[in-house]
């Protein structure tokens, strides 16, 4: 069984790029373009990992993360936040809410993001 990753991100270009990488690395990716769909898919699909953007339509990433961690069905799923926000307050807030890792998009290459994902998946 390939491991599944839920990617909640409103930029479809990123969905495409990561989709390709995940496919090649042997993961199955489910994508959600807004927070609402993201939350629903997290509950129904129970992915092994969630990759989450913070600025999202409908329900923003902070609230998605909060709800994920409050729900007994989803609270064990590791969440990696991948965002352009880099304020100290945002980072502290997200870590406080229970995210596994906080990655600022501008600071990482694809390969490095992949490494963090594998680490979070325990590989």
């Amino acid at each position, binding site marked *: 069984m390939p491991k599944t990753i839920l990617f909640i991100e409103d930029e479809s270009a990123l969905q495409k790029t990561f989709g390709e990488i995940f496919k090649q690395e042997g993961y199955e990716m489910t994508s959600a373009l807004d927070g609402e769909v993201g939350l629903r898919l997290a509950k129904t699909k129970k992915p092994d990992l969630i990759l989450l953007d913070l600025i999202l339509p409908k329900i923003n990433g902070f609230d998605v993360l909060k709800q994920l961690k409050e729900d007994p069905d989803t609270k064990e799923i590791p969440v990696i936040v991948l965002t352009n926000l880099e*304020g100290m307050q945002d980072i502290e807030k997200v870590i406080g809410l229970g995210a596994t890792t906080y990655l600022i998009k501008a600071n990482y*290459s694809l390969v490095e993001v992949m490494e963090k994902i594998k680490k979070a998946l325990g590989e």
Partner: protein
Amino acid sequence: MSLKEIFAQLNIFTQCGKYGVSLWQCPQFLFLIMGVVIIGSTLAAYAIGSRYIEEPQIVALIVLVVTAVLFMVAASITRSFERLAEANRMKSEFVSVVSHQLRSPLSNFRWAIELLMSGRIGQIEEKQLEYFKILKENSNRMKELVSDLLTVSRIETAELPTKKEECHLEDIIKDFIKEFQPFATASNVEIAFKPQLNLPKVLVDASQIKLVIENLLDNAIRYIKEPGKVEIRLERQNEQLYFEIKDTGVGIPKDDQKYIFQKFFRSENIMRHQTQGTGLGLYIARAIIEKLGGKIGFKSQEGKGSTFYFTLPIK
């Protein structure tokens, strides 16, 4: 300052035009009005006073009226300064919003290039690779520029948060030297670091001081155009920690030296070498060092090299 420049300074209308505010909101114009009112009222008070000296109430009334007028003018001057400050703040905020907006497409762009270049979705030919490299380098340059712009706008809106912690500066420097080693080797530059023994820790914001050291080290290596040397010193000087970085690079022309910490300023001789850079690094470095209570400066001679230094208070 030449005579022409002095006249240009005195031309209030052009000066006010630069701010993009109306004449009645322009500090220079309001000061002129205030001056005219003061001179006029002094003369009037003298003329009236010498004629109606037997009626002191009138003089008192005039003084009262003049004071009221001056008070109103002063109030509008204050208000006009507020408007200018507000305009400046809005400009910085605009830069911040735009930079943030630029980041998303830029990440898509960088990662898509990385995916293409990895050969994962089809082999690319040698000749194509060259152009992919150009795309990659330039997207990285754009990324640097955007992040510098964000730092600058945070400095200007006083939103650069400082999270102080005790740091060993020599460890930070050693890490950077390691990181920059490939770049230095490729540029034929030798890096020597001589820290004093048993240096105390300093209370700084690590991420910010890293930005300063990274900028200074990057500049030192980047502007060496022949085989050369970068020497870094770190020592205690009384109650301060003194950092110095000396290079054998192109140096800064004398005429450009006074502008070197200005935003977007790039020296004429480095523009000639077509070296990339945003002209923001030293501006950022100075803002950070001054915020941490230190001083930054340099000595330079064109063709010989530059020495940049900064101090930081120990506790």
